[in-house]
């Protein structure tokens, strides 16, 4: 692993250098929102931002992705092409450590031993992730330390940048990351002092995270309490919109739909949400999850129990998006804390 120092004023230039030869996705300001967008048409990457509104999962698991295309012929509908093998090498710049961790969680689902998801894997393997550590947690709603991460976590990243004050410490963690170093040319090597400073910064950043939830501790309760009066208390004000799931970096449920226009057609995989009644509605009219109470229980159980059972990790990275943007302020931190008190 290479450790180098990047001068603050040089970072934007280095990112643009990458953008000149391949697509670079970076946080940019669009209207009032900070979102990930391709750096094209002279768009400037943001270097100072809290976090993006949208989760970067969109890059590997797009909101709508064409799985295959087909054609109406005289014989009937025929397959035209499989849409894999089209992804290009890209760089994803400026991911917060919580979001980068979400990639590892998504990997465990999409890159299982049996039933690999070729669309996700292809995009993921062709993307180099440059993560930007949080020396100050950007929001008071951040709770990454409660769910297995920390503000300078390198999980899921190929390169991790840490703001040391006067310069960035750049750690090139994977072979993909080291390839970037070749493009960037000579950067001064980091010394032990930089390393020590990072350690201090981490301790400080961790202490600044005031939001703490007993994420791991509630597992036993969840194991035993599928039926419990507590489940009647959280869903009442829920609008059943998909904001929490769409903005969530780890939510990965999807739908598959066919679309046609004249003779051409395609099969699209698109985000779906366990908050929608249609999600589990069967053709027969039967619906195993008829009420919002059941859907909320599903969401919470999936994150804090089922995913833990299946992949040994909580499917939440503590970014706080669902807390901040829920229209009716249903706060997952409060729910988890309330459960721990039962």
């Amino acid at each position, binding site marked *: 692993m290479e450790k180098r120092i990047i001068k603050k004023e040089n970072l934007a230039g280095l990112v643009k250098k990458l953008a000149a030869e391949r697509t670079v996705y970076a946080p940019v300001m669009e209207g009032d929102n900070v979102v990930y967008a391709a750096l094209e048409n002279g768009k400037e990457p943001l270097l100072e931002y809290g976090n993006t509104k949208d989760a970067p999962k969109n890059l590997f698991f797009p909101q709508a992705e064409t799985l295959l295309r087909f054609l109406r012929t005289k014989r009937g509908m025929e*397959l035209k092409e499989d849409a894999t093998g089209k992804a290009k090498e890209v760089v994803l710049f400026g991911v917060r450590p919580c979001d980068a961790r979400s990639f590892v969680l998504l990997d465990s689902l999409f890159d299982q031993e049996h039933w690999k998801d070729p669309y996700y894997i292809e995009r993921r393997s062709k993307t180099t992730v440059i993560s930007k550590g949080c020396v100050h947690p950007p929001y008071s709603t951040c709770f990454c330390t409660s769910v297995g991460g920390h503000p300078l976590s390198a999980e899921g990243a190929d390169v991790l940048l840490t703001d040391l004050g006067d310069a960035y410490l750049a750690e090139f963690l994977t072979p993909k990351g080291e390839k970037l170093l070749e493009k960037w040319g000579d950067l001064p090597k980091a010394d032990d002092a930089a390393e020590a400073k990072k350690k201090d910064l981490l301790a400080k950043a961790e202490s600044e995270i005031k939001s703490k939830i007993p994420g791991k501790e509630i597992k036993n309760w969840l194991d035993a309490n599928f039926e419990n009066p507590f489940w009647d208390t959280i869903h009442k004000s829920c609008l059943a919109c998909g904001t929490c799931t769409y903005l969530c970096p780890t939510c990965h449920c999807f739908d598959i739909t066919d679309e046609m226009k004249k003779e051409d057609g395609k099969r699209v995989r698109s985000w779906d949400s366990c908050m929608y009644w249609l999600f589990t509605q069967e053709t027969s009219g039967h619906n195993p999850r008829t009420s919002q109470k059941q859907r909320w229980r599903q969401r919470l159980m999936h994150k804090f129990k089922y995913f833990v059972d299946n992949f040994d990790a909580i499917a939440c990275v503590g970014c706080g998006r669902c807390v901040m943007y829920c229209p009716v302020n249903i706060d997952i931190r409060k729910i988890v804390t309330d459960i721990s008190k039962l």
Partner: protein
Amino acid sequence: MERNPYLPIPVEVVKITTEVDTKDIKTFRLAFTKKEDEENFKYMPGQFAELSLYGKGESPIGIASSPTQKGYLEFTVQRAGVVTQALHNMEEGTPMGVRGPLGNYWPINYLEGKNVVIVGGGFAFTTLRSLLNYMLYEENRARFGDITVVYGARSPGLLIYKDELTEWAKRKDLNLNVTVDKGDAGWTGREGFVPTVCKEIAPSSENSVTVICGPPIMIRFTLPVFFDLGFSKENIYTSLEMRMKCGIGKCGRCNVGNKYVCKDGPVFSLAELDKLTKEY
């Protein structure tokens, strides 16, 4: 890398059989377009596949043919939604797609050397038919003990696989009991609900396993009969149904607790189901 699991295998509809008087249940025989696909499509009774109609979508349907029937797959489908409607409108010779085989299967290894009781209701008899044909296959028959079948439908016209029922009835190595809730003028067989018939036949629980599949209401009333006969929860198997999209445990909708019906199911023993949440 394994085959792209989202990519349907090209097949062609070679035969369509209308099964019931109401004409809303048909059996589709699909033949593989490519020889190598046929060889790679290794399945067991109880598994399902996604029938893929480009432009309409996909529908998960249990495989009704047995792996001992070479050269084709069969699916018995009720007309219900967008995909099945389109399927019913299809003609022989039309190309389509199949994704699979998906899910687990009836516990064949466990059934070996045991007596098997098959209980089916209505058109849920499809994968049971697959199992039955598999066990009755010449080379396989000796591996299993006595086979008892209880199959019921609301009326004689709603029984599926009528030709096979006639064939099976002639066999000596099979105790076939077909029943209808209410017979019609031409019906000479048994009348009565499936649970009642099971009670009358009273198969022994000694070294026996029950495989049951049918409408929830039938299952609910049949299970107590088998408990009374001394069957343990480990020896009763059933198959679950859920809304599915991907069929490979990713899209997140068909879970019962931490198990995905598409990947870890659809076949579960009652003992396994007891450990899961009751949300199906």
